[in-house]
């Protein structure tokens, strides 16, 4: 995949980061991503990401677990191999509830985990470009994508003024699996405000 040019600004504190994100978006720059050492609440909304649909996927997986378990057990007990167990009914619905519940939870959890890894492009031996090696320690790293119109020097100054403690320019192959960010990032001026 083609390499792109990014301007990287590192922030030391999320209280500086939030106003900076707002300034950058108001100025019309395209935030590629912000890398943080922990889940900063509200940052996803601040950079204009839509809500994730992962939980919907989890619901669908759970529903399929319910139907597979209930359908499977009913088929076995009623049609495939009806057994007379102490004269009890062939379709003992209450006795099916525990396994149905467990299968629902199992399929939902496993399915969500696989979907999560797929969407986030996470797998063993995956190598990605890291914009800053302390993004997983204590730095909040804002990465801005340069388009043909971007004046790189202006942008660097802009980030420094917004409070970045360290600014640099990097060439990187950012989206090598599926171009999630290209689809989801919407410039602030083109989008309706979230809050």
């Amino acid at each position, binding site marked *: 995949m083609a390499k792109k040019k990014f301007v990287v600004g590192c922030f030391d504190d999320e209280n500086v980061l*939030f106003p900076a994100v707002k300034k950058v978006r108001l100025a019309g720059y395209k935030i590629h991503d912000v890398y943080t050492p922990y889940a900063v609440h509200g940052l*996803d909304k601040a950079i204009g990401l839509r809500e994730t649909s992962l939980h919907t996927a989890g619901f669908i997986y759970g529903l399929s677990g319910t139907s597979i378990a209930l359908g499977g057990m009913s088929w076995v007990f009623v049609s*495939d191999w009806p057994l007379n167990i102490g004269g009890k009914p062939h379709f003992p619905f209450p006795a099916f509830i525990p396994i149905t519940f467990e299968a629902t939870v199992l399929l939902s959890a496993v399915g*969500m985990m696989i979907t999560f890894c797929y969407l986030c492009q996470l797998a063993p031996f995956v190598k990605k470009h*890291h914009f800053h090696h302390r*993004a997983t320690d*204590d730095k909040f790293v804002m990465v801005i994508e340069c388009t043909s119109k971007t004046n790189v020097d202006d942008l660097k100054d802009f980030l420094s003024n917004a409070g970045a403690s360290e600014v640099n320019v990097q060439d990187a192959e950012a989206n090598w699996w599926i171009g999630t960010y290209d689809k989801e990032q919407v410039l602030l001026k083109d989008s309706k405000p979230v809050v």
Partner: protein
Amino acid sequence: MSLLRYESQLREPLIDGDKTYHDVTEDICRPIEAKPGKLWYVGFYISVALLLFGIYSVYREVAYGIGQWNVNHTVGWGWDITNFVWWIGIGHAGTLISAILLLFRQTWRNGVNRAAEAMTIFAVMCAGQFPIWHMGRVWNGFFVLPYPNTRGPVWPNFASPLMWDVFAISTYFTVSLLFWYSGLIPDFATIRDRAKTKFRKFSYGIVAFGWTGSTKHWQRLESLALVLAGLATPLVLSVHTIVSFDFATSVIPGWHTTIFPPYFVAGAIFSGFAMVQTLLLITRKILGLQAYITLGHIEAMNKVIVLTGSIVGCAYLTELFIAYYSQNQYEAYAFFYTRANFYSSYGWAYFGMMFCNVAAPQIFWFRKMRRNLWVTMFLSIIVNIGMWFERFVIIVTSIYRDYLPSSWPYYYSPSIWEIGFYVGTFGLFFTCYFLFSKYFPVIAIAEIKQILKVSGESYKDKMDKLEEDTVEAFAHATAH
């Protein structure tokens, strides 16, 4: 002064000392990057020795048959299933801390959830051994799985609580493992990114799955954690409920009671928290993590212990009352002759259980006792002994006098290989725990950073400057 407060002025801090984000990383990664101390090696080798003894005991049982154990015609479940229920119960505290407390937004869980969840996984691994090897012909163990086979096809009986157990425990193990691992990914990435040796960078790189800390990924991870917590909450209640069904759906006096599910779940959480206390008191001391697992954390867990211990005590008394009130002679025999009777063969187990589970934890009504490390350590072990007695009382005293007096056995006591098997699971548990404490971040690094500024001791003053802004100014700067 703004109405917005970053820090609660009333609550005790959850992170002691003057910490920055980088300090948190340093403190938690230090034990992983340093060579383990002498104590670690001593503990690890003892655990491995116990594990080897357990493996030999299991070998005896498989090679020579179930007769290597002293289980007999009426006491068919003996130590083996006692230990199974005990270990499964231990596991429950981890899920309670990681899932239920997440849903209730109890931020103190962030300091203890990683180790507690690891404990869950190791305890379920130990628990799983017992029903598997109890099968006797363990090479036919796959018969419990529902698959179209060449034997008919004969399917397992899906209406049997023993079958429910297979599903419940395998699901519980899988979901706990996924929940635990999803939280570990960002922390592995932290270790990878600060690794000094090539080998460490490579190996943690594999397990970190290429995590970068992207905002979108965090958003999805938070969503995943919340839904998994929502799923794990009813799951953890269902697991011990189903374990209690193994007994409650039978017609044996002493087992056949509707109080079993809630009583088992409360007991499980009770014993699990005791085990968490034992492990964390040692871990925080040896790894020097007192700033993250504070006295406040220990006190909070002791409160859970006194609550669940009292619930269990209520259940014991209810059982006794119902045995009297039902006027059922078999029920009364089980409770007033074989159990609550100083002169019966197993009266010692019943009164031991009553003392350890009901009387002893009441000491935690006193704040001073809840915050005393020695008392906590001692009580946590007492509680675990008591909970083992509980399972022993339920299983053995109910079946050593069955309906046919001619098959009433002599006094049941375990053989050396039964004991060896139990000791071996301690070996397995602690071998895993020692490896965990060396190679894994025992505290969730990212989750501690998340609460650092709202629960860190030093931030009570540091946030003052920000709190001086008016609400409007704050909202204006950060609104989007």
